[in-house]
């Protein structure tokens, strides 16, 4: 577990299942307003990682690919938080972001997962947890976590603790 600097974390997973379990650990730590950006090519495991986040967070319905609808909204039983799961592959800039109600989603009462965040980077908040997933080999993936802002550095510290015990 190389620590590049405070606010960064570099992990290699060896299977889709392991990627999903990492997502679960992160999902348990999420608070309302958290913005998690998942960047990476098709097949890198963004939706697998998201599905894990959903399980950890406690979503009633499983997180599936939001590609078609662009936005999926999930609820959980313990409170009335709503988790928004976005796919921005087909968004190009502020007008598209507005058409899916991004402002309301970001000001909403729950965490937000953004796939293909690079397509709307200029309208995303500067403070966020950015995770890049890279395809190394057929089943191995490299996840690079980059936290910007105090809340996300704290989130990453807790995540590291729950994952590696340090």
């Amino acid at each position, binding site marked *: 577990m190389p620590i590049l600097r405070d606010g960064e974390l570099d992990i290699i997973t060896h299977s889709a299942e392991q990627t999903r379990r990492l997502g679960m650990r992160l999902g348990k730590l999420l608070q309302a307003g958290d913005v998690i950006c998942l960047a990476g090519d098709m097949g890198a495991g963004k*939706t697998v990682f998201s599905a894990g986040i959903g399980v950890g967070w406690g979503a009633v319905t499983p997180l*599936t690919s939001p*590609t078609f609808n662009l*936005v999926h909204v999930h609820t959980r039983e313990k409170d009335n938080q709503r988790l928004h799961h976005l796919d921005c592959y087909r968004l190009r800039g502020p007008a*598209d972001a507005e058409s899916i109600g991004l402002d309301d989603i970001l000001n909403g009462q729950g965490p937000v997962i953004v796939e293909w965040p690079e397509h709307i980077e200029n309208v995303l908040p500067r403070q966020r947890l950015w995770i890049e997933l890279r395809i190394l080999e057929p089943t191995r993936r490299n996840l690079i976590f980059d936290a910007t802002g105090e809340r996300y550095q704290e989130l990453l510290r807790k995540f590291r603790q729950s994952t590696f015990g340090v």
Partner: protein
Amino acid sequence: MTIILGIETSCDETAAAVVQDGKTIISNVVASQIDLHAAYGGVFPEVASRAHVEAIGVVGEQAVRDAGLTFDRIDAIAVTRGPGLVGSLLVGVNYAKGLALATGKPLLGINHLEGHVYSLWLTQPVREIVFPVLVLIVSGGHTELLLMTGHGEYERLGGTLDDAAGEAFDKVGRILGLPFPGGPNIEQAAQQGNPTAFEFPRARTDESYDFSFSGLKTAVMREVTVMPSAAARRRERGAEKHAVLRSDISVNDAAASFQKALVDALVEKTARAAKAYNVTEILMAGGVSANTALRNAMRAATDLPVRYPPLNLCTDNAAMIAAAGYYRYIAGLRDDLDMDVRPNWPLNNETYGAPAGVTAQS
């Protein structure tokens, strides 16, 4: 005689249709945006809603005029309320509300997936449908296996855990460098290809009736693409990190093998569910049900009748919304003018509120 005007704008087709008694199409107008979106390789939400706004008035009026009617001869207005793109749904729902207000006709909010189911009723002059039936909805956004025990009664047996079937077609089409939309283009390429050239994984065939196509998509990518070397990636940081199609691969073989793997998964679970629930026939609907390989494989896998809509009713249309609306209309159901859109609306027994004696399941 009951006449329903249907309106559909959930994705990239602006559509209106007039249907009599839930069975007979009197008019069916579809303004497709496919050429508009092909340039982008997918439906872009802002482009889609703007195109809907421009088309909806003309399309609505044409549907009524083609039917040889006027708006006051319509008994009710049925409109897709969800699931779909929120900006697109709003255009249709607001137009329908305006019509309802202006004409005083009742308004019915229809689930788009239920619309796909009722596209099968538009084939009815041939033979009546007898419940229970198994319904497989396969489209760009949905893969749903439903047990239908009566009008408006759906038990959801399974669905996709990740990518929808049509989404897998679109994404694999993109990997193979084929034009958008992926479905018809992959089918065409597959006709020239060898479906056994690649051994792509079938999704886990466990006990459940759920589907998974994300692993299949990744497997196709693994076989047919190469990643640029790490050195090349460093040189052009961020610029070329995408996989590139291998030049020594037959796109037709890859398309045929992918299509076979996907069709096998759909057919295996559907045929098994049909047996387990003792249904009278299998109904397929949605854009992917237009796929000839799927139709042939489904017919080969079961002794039951397999019904699917004619090609023009597989894709999004408003006749199916009017047909679904008819059964809600004759059941005495109505919606208020303050009805909102439901972009993530599932189809199950709680879609329109739980019927008596049915308990919610998570």
